[in-house]
């Protein structure tokens, strides 16, 4: 069930990323919704799930966007694994730890992604630190909102269910 949920989250993130990206900050989006989904899956389902989610999501994202398939997948696999391991070892259910996890995960992902491209001599990035900072900020905000939204959904449904019950 969790696997299905993870797949749905990734699919939703990919869909949103590919459809909404061009409307955000002039097309060069500083937000990686797929990465947010991977971190979410990793924190809620563990290292293996996070890694598999990162691998699949990264590969699909690469296939859709990048010229080299696998670099994004590799970066997201590592990030998903590490974040999942952290989530299993530490309590990151509070807002502040999650905030740090999102920021660190984004920074690690950007560094891995751009570092792999640079190491392979395929592409150089002009200002990696600025990209890291902006994407970390954007992903953290989106991630925190997403977590809050998802965690609040059961209560909302419960309240609506109770409000729909006919009054005697």
């Amino acid at each position, binding site marked *: 069930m969790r*696997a299905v949920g993870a797949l749905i989250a990734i699919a939703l993130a990919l869909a949103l990323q590919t459809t909404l990206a061009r409307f955000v900050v002039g097309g060069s989006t500083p937000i990686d919704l797929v990465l947010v989904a991977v971190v979410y899956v990793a924190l809620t389902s*563990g*290292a*293996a*799930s996070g*890694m*598999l989610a990162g*691998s699949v999501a990264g*590969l699909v994202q690469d296939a859709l966007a990048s010229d*080299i*398939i*696998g*670099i994004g*997948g*590799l970066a997201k*696999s*590592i990030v998903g*694994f590490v974040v999942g391991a952290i989530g299993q070892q530490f309590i990151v259910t509070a807002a502040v730890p999650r905030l740090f996890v999102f920021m660190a995960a984004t920074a690690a992902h950007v560094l891995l992604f751009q570092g*792999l491209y640079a190491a*392979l*001599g*395929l592409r150089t990035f002009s200002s990696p630190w600025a990209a890291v900072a902006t994407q970390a900020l954007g992903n953290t905000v989106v991630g925190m909102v997403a977590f809050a939204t998802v965690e609040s959904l059961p209560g909302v449904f419960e309240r609506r269910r109770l409000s729909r019950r006919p009054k005697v």
Partner: protein
Amino acid sequence: MALLDIRQRVGWLFMTVIVAHLILISAQVSSHRGVPLLEEAIFGAVSEVQRVATGGIGEARGAWHNYLNLRQISRENDELRQRLSQLEVALQRERALAGQTRLLQELLDFKKETPLSTTPATVIASGASPDFRTMTLDKGSSEGLAADMAVIAPAGIVGRVILPTARAAKVQLIIDRNAAAAGLVERTRAQGVVVGTGSDRMRFEYVPGTADVKTGDRVVTSGMDGIYPKGFVIGQIESIERTAGEFSAVLIRPSVNLSALEAVLVVTSASEVPKADRIAAERTKPATARPE
């Protein structure tokens, strides 16, 4: 269930995913040589395997060839060792022959020079007892040897024949404790008697206390004993001791190395042959008839 099993092996799964991604990336990325990284990596790995395999085969072949060569070299080595041993033996034989030839040549020259009738003889044995300094010659009475005949060598006096048999003769060396010879100092003509001591030195006795004798003087035979012909070297004075104005001990070192004698001349006739007549007689003889 399968997903649970995979999750229990997260480390392996992580490594598998990472390697799979690296392979995927390598398949698409070209190296600076323009070859895809995957192809280059695979080729590099396979080539290393091929290199190791080829190297291993080459090493094995080399080891086998070395083994075969080693066996062949071992055989050749054995043959060469045998050949070397044979050559060493031959060389020793040749050296011995050369030494003997040189010795005989010296003896022949000495025989020609000396004005005495002599017979050459070869030393075939030394004394059996250390108390008696003797040696055995290969010539005996059948060749004209007789008792009390002087035995000489190019370097000087050797001794005298004491026991001739038909085909051999025992010679008493001049250093034997029972041997004696009349001698004189060549430089001052001071006379005395040379007596053997049984060791490798002789004593010069009965030398007058007023005689002029010095260390290093050469002592020769005086011919007064009737055995040794006159004028042959006995030895050299090595040390002199005086007591109360008299010579108490005059030691002489023999001129002949008696321990290394191989051939000698036996003086068969004490009468001297005039040298001119001898040389004339030698010249008239045919070369093949000349004595050795």
